């Protein structure tokens, strides 16, 4: 069993808005292991990005507030350590890459400057020359051609895929324990996405970091993750290793998501049948139903789901496979 490096317990994050208080993350438990990738899947508003930002303590406060829970990183609760110490961990031990590589890079500094800044902040013992060398080395690591040249260029001179590589180079400059990737390839084309995902897999093998892969693309999950948590309305509804989850989904939401992706196994080439869908839409966080949040869209709904026995808790269906459903599928 790999070493557990991060454990999130019962995390709740609330936001105050004009229309009242909402719970964007409600009782989330997650574990990250060394050298493994944890996938967090869900649709917009399911709370996956807020979970990631909580780990980095980057929730804007106010309006946001971590209402409950602990985030345990190698024996320390990240939510309680002083701000200065958090700053030393952030970027150094736990790094993050964001979805949009253009807006996450500063347009008025060269790529080299920005990578060197990270190194300067966290590895102050290195001299200026050493930092420069390290920046070039990092660009080489992420497969950017002619890194000596690129290091002097500005973000607008690079393509989208290159910028995301620079982001990865920056986040890996301090050889973090944990890399949080928030939709790292969503803004990229498929051929570039394939390059970036392959790069991340390769770097993980070399550096042995744990990765939290946040995405809405089940294809990306199937190809990169070891374990998967599916989120819906701020809660984890199902959690298992990747093969178990895809082969035997227990929660109707997980199954619905998988079915609604068109697959390539069709052979006719003529008009195909209808895609299976999940009816309706995600309920508003302001107005969540009693009981199961998925009840209005679920085909197997019963009175139990409508709140007579409270909301379904995440429970073990089979060893290593948890689902929050009163009527798991098999």
């Amino acid at each position, binding site marked *: 069993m790999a070493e557990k490096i991060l454990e999130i317990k019962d995390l709740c994050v609330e936001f105050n808005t004009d229309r009242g208080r909402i719970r964007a993350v409600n009782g989330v438990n997650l574990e990250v292991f060394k050298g493994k990738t944890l996938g967090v899947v869900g649709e917009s508003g399911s709370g996956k990005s807020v979970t990631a930002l909580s780990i980095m303590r980057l929730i804007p406060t106010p309006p946001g507030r971590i209402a409950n829970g602990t985030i345990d990183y190698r024996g320390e609760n990240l939510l309680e350590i002083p701000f200065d110490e958090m700053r030393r961990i952030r970027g150094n031990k736990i790094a993050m890459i964001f979805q949009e590589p253009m807006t996450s890079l500063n347009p008025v500094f060269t790529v080299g400057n920005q990578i060197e800044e990270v190194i300067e902040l966290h590895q102050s013992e290195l001299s200026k020359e050493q930092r420069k060398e390290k920046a070039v080395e990092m660009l080489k690591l992420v497969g950017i051609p002619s890194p000596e040249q690129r290091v002097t260029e500005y973000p607008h001179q690079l*393509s989208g895929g290159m910028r995301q590589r620079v982001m990865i180079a920056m986040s890996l400059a301090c050889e973090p324990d944990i890399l949080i990737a928030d939709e790292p390839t969503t803004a990229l084309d498929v051929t570039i996405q394939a390059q970036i995902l392959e790069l991340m897999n390769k770097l993980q093998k070399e550096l042995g970091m744990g990765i939290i892969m946040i995405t809405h693309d*089940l294809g990306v999950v*199937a190809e990169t993750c070891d374990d998967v948590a599916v989120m819906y309305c701020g809660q984890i509804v199902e959690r298992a290793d990747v093969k178990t989850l*895809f082969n035997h989904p227990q929660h109707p939401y997980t199954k619905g998501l998988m079915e609604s992706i068109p*697959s390539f196994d069709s052979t006719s080439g003529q008009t195909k049948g209808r*895609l299976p869908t999940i009816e309706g*839409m995600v309920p508003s966080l302001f107005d969540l139903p009693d009981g199961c949040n998925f009840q209005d869209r679920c085909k197997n709904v019963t009175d139990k789901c409508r709140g007579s026995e409270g909301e379904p808790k995440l429970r073990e269906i089979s060893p290593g496979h948890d689902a929050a459903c009163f009527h798991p599928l098999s």
Partner: protein
Amino acid sequence: MSEYILEVNNLTKRFPINGGIFGREVGAVSAVNNVSFKIKKGETLGLVGESGCGKTTLGRSLLRLIEPTSGEVKFNGTDITSLDKDGMREMRRKMQIIFQDPYASLNPRMTVGGILAEPMEIHKLFMDKQERHKRLLQLLDQVQLPSDALNKYPHEFSGGQRQRICIARALAVEPEFIVCDEPVSALDVSVQAQVVNLMMDLQKDLGLTYLFIAHDLKVVEYISNRVAVMYLGNMVEVAKSSELYGAARHPYTKALFSAIPNPNPNVNPDRIILEGDIPSPMNPPSGCHFHPRCWNATDECRSAYPPVTELSADHAYRCFNPNQV
């Protein structure tokens, strides 16, 4: 009447690049380069390619929302590139477009009723008040929205519902042909499937013809009868959607489809990872534009642009060294 509703011959769109103090033309981007294709009545032609390959420019040139530089677009036998402004407006009643972003393409100050009535107003359709109302309700029913939507504003709807409103607006003037420019890209997976189903139902009921532009290859493959693949302004392959995945001839098509992450962890993907980025369209490579990234490239590919090879009526490609199937 021919079986083709749309015939495009050698369509080209060049965007000049002006520079220097006198704003002289210093170069040009060929966003769409000598593209020819046909769409059958009632068919869906998918159009795929990576960002910047010219698929949106092509879609808009068909309606002359972007004026093509040269070439011919024949709609039901009429060359629309030679029509004057009034003639074109009349023609657009038959040709509509749905845009990608349902948040940006609806006027936030108009009610849904107003939005849907505007195209009818322009084309002087359903001028009788009661008939107009009946038509509005019928449109909402067709896209499965409740009738009380008429008096609501766009912000009161979710992304998927807004895209339904956009679809209803395109249907308002009873078009024959709709350019769908990334209609489901901004939607969540579960909602995306609903909208795809709706569009397929409408096509069946109303006999519509679609040009379906998207970068999500799985959705395109699903909804289309045939799929066209573009790379740097050129159409490199057209084939039946069932053939494209397994029997692609152009190496780019093969690489593109193999790059899609497979939502099945049990199979190991046989993946072709392309090296490098798409070259700049301002300065495209010589010969076949794909040769710097192609593993089959020969000297011939570096010097000449490959002509169209027609395998069958539905399958054509531009490549000197196609994949053997």
